């Protein structure tokens, strides 16, 4: 196995992009990534696309060759593969592409993530968004995604003394960071009082604890590290790429206040990267719901179980502290186009490590982590990225 580097990144605006189609946003992200890497499309071996539910959202399956075709690349006839793993589709696609390049089979590949979520009415959108839970044994009985995360939140409060204000702070933090990201779905700042006073969705979670439905796409270009300098001055090494899984339904977990899939993906990733959580100053964590972000801070190893809430309340997390999280705005403010999330997280880490993050730049970080979750944690993916000097 050889070392793999990210050579270029691209990302579209996230939000309600009514004037833009699935294929348009997919192509834009891919070309931006290619452009920033100085690679020519002739150099490519394959295309990977993380996408969760194009069939349900836009009645279009088989989207990998579609995006390839409209990128003008159909004449190359190279492989184009769609990867689906719920909301973790993007990161799982990246993990597959990483393996293909590491193995030596492919040299240069584009990995995109894309989702077009706002072409359907809101109620249909929320039904599709619930499709990553167990339809037969959760959904049928009245479960929604926020309701399942609310069950985890309530139990976290019972077992670990976590308070409602603790996880509410993640939404405030996301919007603070999102206000500095021109590509973010939401760029308004919000206060703790607004989060706590927002309409209840599934208690204790309210409207401002939940990430939005967004359109958007992101892409990265991968290649062998030993050839990276030819295409970029700042290659970012993939120090670890790990997937772990768990039971489909939340109720069947060992402990609903922990995602064992995240714990294991992180543990394996830290082993592979030969790093400790305390050495990571920068992370994009999967906070589709604020409580999910709080649990991630614990499950990734940054805090002991039950300690993340207090850390958030004490302002120990954020830009300017020892752990900057979700500098992009996270899922809550940057937005949540399902298939694109895992790639967009990596795009943000790369921009930070290259010093290209503008007003939200974290100073001095040379390593960062991205954490993407599918469903309520049946799939978790952790990537660790490192700047090469």
């Amino acid at each position, binding site marked *: 196995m050889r070392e793999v580097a990210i050579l270029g990144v691209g990302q579209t605006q996230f939000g309600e992009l009514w004037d833009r189609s699935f294929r348009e946003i997919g192509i834009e992200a891919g070309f931006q990534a290619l452009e920033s890497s100085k690679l020519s499309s002739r150099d490519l071996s394959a295309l990977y696309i993380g996408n969760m539910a194009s069939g349900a959202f836009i009645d279009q399956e088989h989207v990998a060759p579609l995006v390839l075709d409209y990128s003008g690349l159909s004449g190359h006839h190279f492989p184009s593969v769609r990867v689906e793993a719920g909301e973790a589709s993007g990161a799982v696609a990246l993990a597959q592409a990483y393996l293909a390049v590491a193995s030596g089979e492919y040299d240069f590949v584009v990995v995109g993530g894309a989702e077009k979520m706002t072409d359907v009415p809101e109620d249909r959108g929320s039904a599709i968004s619930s499709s990553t839970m167990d339809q*037969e044994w959760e959904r*049928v*009985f*009245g479960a*929604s995604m926020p*309701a399942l995360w609310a069950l985890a939140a309530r*139990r976290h409060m019972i077992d670990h003394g976590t308070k409602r204000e603790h996880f509410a702070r993640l939404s405030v933090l996301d919007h603070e960071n999102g206000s500095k990201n021109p590509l973010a779905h939401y760029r308004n700042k919000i206060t703790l009082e607004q989060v706590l006073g927002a309409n209840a969705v599934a208690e204790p979670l309210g409207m401002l604890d939940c990430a939005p439905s967004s359109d958007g796409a992101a892409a990265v270009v991968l290649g062998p590290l030993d050839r990276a300098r030819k295409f970029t001055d700042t290659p970012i090494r993939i120090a670890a790429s790990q997937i772990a899984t768990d039971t489909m339904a939340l*109720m069947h977990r060992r402990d609903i206040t922990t995602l064992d899939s995240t714990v294991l993906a992180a543990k394996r990733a830290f082993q592979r990267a030969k790093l400790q959580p305390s050495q990571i100053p920068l992370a994009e964590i999967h906070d589709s719901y604020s409580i999910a972000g709080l649990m991630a801070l614990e499950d990734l190893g940054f805090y002991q179980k039950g300690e993340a809430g207090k850390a958030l309340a004490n302002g120990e997390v954020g830009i300017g502290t020892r752990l900057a999280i979700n500098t992009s705005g996270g899922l809550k403010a940057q937005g949540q186009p399902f298939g694109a999330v895992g790639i967009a997280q990596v795009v943000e880490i790369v921009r930070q490590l290259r010093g290209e993050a503008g007003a939200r730049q974290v100073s001095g970080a040379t390593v960062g982590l991205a954490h993407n979750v599918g469903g309520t944690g049946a799939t978790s993916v952790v990537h660790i990225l490192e700047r090469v000097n």
Partner: protein
Amino acid sequence: MSVARFWRETLRRYNLGASKCPDCETVFFPPRPVCPRCAVHRKSIAKMEPCQLSGHGKVYSYTIVHEAADGFEMQVPYVLAMVQMSEGPMLTGQIVDVEPSQVKEGLEVKASFRKLREEGEGGVIHYGYKFAPASQAPKAP
């Protein structure tokens, strides 16, 4: 959800039909074809024993849902809970016949056969279990 898709599972949803591993004796709901607990799967494949849950359990976690899941709009606010059954399995379902604010962790509940939802005006009606406080459940004659 199509009629056949719902109908296939009615035995489990109506009667709480579960399965038990012949080796470690763990009870699973919904029934599983193979025991995920036993390291040697071969011992349980095609040998899981059907069994029935009593319907008695305790609330493990709960939420009052205000933004309904698809098809449950007429029921808000409703309580969704995880209930630990006396035989071990954890179930996800609604708690009914109680003021939502009265539902707490540890509340003893009993499964009850109820209408879950209707699939629009011309669709089928889904039935299955919901839970009611055990103290309010009708006594057996």
